């Protein structure tokens, strides 16, 4: 076999590239390097909290800006028998439970939730994958419910327990209290002037507008106030965080 100069250069280039690339793959699998990369999330969390504080609002849009089709993603129909029964009964005997580190645990019906002051907001839903959809949400401020439940001072996070699952592992999510009490953080029971459709999380879904879509838990059954996320799932604060190491703080 004759080795031409051209072949040699191409071969060297390709094998160097291959080595670098497999080096990157191996680095990305190394726990120590991963924790180095994870520093990026911690830095982003601190800096974004510093820049936007408690009150800065996500952009709100006009009706003219709304997506013609609001895409649904993830689970579109929970499989549990309980959920099927509630759905068949129009969620009439369903209750949202708010408990954990609260002095006044609550169990609220959908009718009660809808009778509380409603916030309507046209906001953009940003998927971690890169697409965005703008929809109009109707719901009750989470902060209002937390005040009713009398959150204890030890509470640091809110865990959202959901009715849907992936291969038997239930979906859950969590946020800090800054987002929990943010003006645009609502538990939505309506989308685009209608009752929240099943594929978008009926009867109730979280809207936490300054973070990416996977934080917006659908099919919320229970909100639990906790002082640590360690006891839930694999301890990273959410289903996707546990399963594939998505960032717990999804502000970017």
């Amino acid at each position, binding site marked *: 076999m004759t080795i031409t100069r051209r072949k040699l250069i191409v071969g060297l280039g390709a094998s160097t590239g291959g080595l670098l*690339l497999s080096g990157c793959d191996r680095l*990305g699998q190394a726990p120590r390097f991963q924790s180095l*990369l*994870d*520093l*990026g999330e911690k830095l982003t969390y601190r800096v974004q909290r510093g820049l936007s504080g408690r009150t800065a609002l996500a952009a709100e849009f006009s009706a003219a800006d709304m997506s013609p089709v609001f*895409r649904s993603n993830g689970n579109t129909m929970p499989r549990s028998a309980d959920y099927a029964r509630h759905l068949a009964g129009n969620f009439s005997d369903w209750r949202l439970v708010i408990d954990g580190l609260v002095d006044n645990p609550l169990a609220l019906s959908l009718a009660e939730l809808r009778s509380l002051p409603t916030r309507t907001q046209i906001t953009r839903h940003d*998927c971690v994958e890169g697409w*965005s959809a703008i929809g109009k949400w109707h719901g009750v401020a989470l902060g209002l419910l937390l005040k009713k439940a009398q959150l204890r001072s030890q509470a640091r996070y809110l865990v959202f327990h959901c009715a849907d699952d992936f291969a038997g592992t239930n979906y859950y999510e969590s946020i800090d209290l800054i987002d929990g009490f943010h003006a645009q953080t609502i538990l939505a029971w309506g989308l685009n002037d209608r009752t929240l459709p099943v594929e978008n999380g009926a009867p109730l879904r979280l809207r936490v507008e300054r973070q990416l879509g996977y934080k917006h838990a659908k099919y919320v059954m229970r909100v639990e106030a906790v002082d640590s996320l360690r006891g839930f799932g694999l301890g990273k604060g959410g289903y996707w965080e546990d399963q594939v190491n998505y960032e717990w703080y999804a502000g970017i």
Partner: protein
Amino acid sequence: MILSEQQPSPAGGTLVRRHRLSTRLWHWINAVTVFVMLMSGLMIFNAHPRLYWGQYGANADPAWFSIGSDATRGFVAIGAVRIPTTGVLGRSKDPGGQMQRRAFPWWATIPSTYNLALARRWHLAFAWVLVLGGLGYALRSFFNGHVRQDLAPARGELSPTHIWHDISNHARLRFPSGVAALKYNILQKIAYLGVLFGLLPLVVLTGLTMSPGMNAAWPWLLKLFGGRPSARSIHFIAMALIAAFIVVHLLMVVLAGPWNEVRSMISGRYRLPKERA
């Protein structure tokens, strides 16, 4: 670039000090960072290989650019035009020879197998290196005179005749020799300034515009770029221009004498090209 002693101009063949330490450090940190950003960014793009203009954009909305595939072919669609790209974009073989339906192939992405979460970890950690390093370099270059002395076009350099002269010299691969080689020519100045103060800030700002947290913190970002999907499109275009700059940059290094050029960026020493006879 700096001449250590401002004595009689050194002749071709002498070794002189060329690049400052700050420039060299930043260059190599950036060389690694930009490749990580490019390749992890392509993996992130793979998660949703469609680009839109405006405030919203998802599968049901029209994309101006997309990379897709059907049962046998891969393609890039720009507007109504479909360009076949089977084997590279849309459909390509992984190292094991298996056909994969993926926008960018394994050899162009970090990590090489589909993993949005890990690509985001790489991208969003190295973004800090890019931003902090870039800010440090920009400040240093303004205060140490690098921008004013070396990068800003001199009087007359922006005249069409001068630029045309430089283009024709480049086209004939006639590079400056002797001390003239120590100065950036106007095409270099335009390219470097365009990347340093045009494309790099643009890619960072459009990146931040994709962040829902930053949209709340800095609402002007959305107004500036006209929406998150628009910012994502501009981010992708700026990436492609930066990649094109790197290709041209590497080509020029090879043509101008790779050993001397790379040494000058490592140790700072540069041997002046001999004057043409």
